[in-house]
């Protein structure tokens, strides 16, 4: 009974705050609305018995939205929402597409013959996840690790101001950079 109440509260809050993300004029409020929605997602995952993943989602989303708020203030013209602002295109067309997508998904969910539950969750699902990632799903874990490493390299390359020609000049055979300070960090 308590689980049902928690589910409905979190579900309604997740959907309502998800809708408000695209209704607020203030970018800061939109970020916090998204944070609320994703925290509710974390709560639903906790409700399903995935304690570790639920806590990871809650912690990650809190930090992620804090970073997103900084970028919002950096790039958006109206971060505080002091004046009405719309930066959208083709709202009606998108609304129709999304309504159709939801209707198709809902029809599939309600009409599909879902298989019955096989087995019971173990006493420690987190240990199951760890054993799976270090065993049969090792390739998945290695791919994720490599993707995260590639992301770190790619973000630094994209975000840095100086490129290859700034450091080495036009000579493609140059072996040493023309840096005033070694390491290529200052110019």
């Amino acid at each position, binding site marked *: 009974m308590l*689980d*049902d109440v928690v*589910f409905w509260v979190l*579900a309604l809050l*997740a*959907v309502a705050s*998800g809708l408000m*993300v*695209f209704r607020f004029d203030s*970018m800061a409020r*939109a*970020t916090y609305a998204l944070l609320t*929605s*994703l925290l509710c*997602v974390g709560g*639903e995952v906790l*409700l*399903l*018995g*995935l304690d570790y*993943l639920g806590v*990871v*989602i809650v912690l*990650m989303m809190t930090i*992620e939205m804090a*970073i*997103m708020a900084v*970028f919002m203030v950096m*790039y*958006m013209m109206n971060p505080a929402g002091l004046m009405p602002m719309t*930066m*959208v*295109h083709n709202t009606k067309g*998108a609304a129709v*597409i*999304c309504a159709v997508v*939801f209707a198709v*998904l*809902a029809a599939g*969910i*309600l009409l599909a013959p*879902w298989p019955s539950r*096989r*087995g*019971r*969750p173990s006493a420690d699902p987190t240990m*199951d*996840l760890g054993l*799976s*990632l270090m065993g049969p*799903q090792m390739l*998945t874990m290695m791919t*994720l690790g490599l*993707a995260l490493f590639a*992301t770190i390299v*790619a*973000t630094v390359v*994209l*975000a840095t*101001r100086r490129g290859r020609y700034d450091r080495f000049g036009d000579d493609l055979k140059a072996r040493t950079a023309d840096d005033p300070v070694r390491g290529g960090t200052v110019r």
Partner: protein
Amino acid sequence: MSLELFLLLAAALFSIGLFGALTQQSIVMLMMGLELMLGGIIVGAAAVWHYIAPEAADGQVLVVLAVTVMAVEMAIGFAVVTALFRAREVDMTDMAAELKE
């Protein structure tokens, strides 16, 4: 609670996120739509694990995958916005339509 209810919640979050991704002109707001869509996928994967195959950890691995995709999407998205803004002072999707040139 049932599998269908959780999946309907996932579908609702996915659809709302899709609406944001389709309508928003700001790249940062577009990314918020993608985050909501991934949130829906997380709820769906966790529910399928719980209600269909709780013995196998594969459903949990799918959640880990979606969470990682969220982190990668945000990091790469902000780096691209930063590079784009530095190069052309652009942070809107409509103005970034000439990336290919």
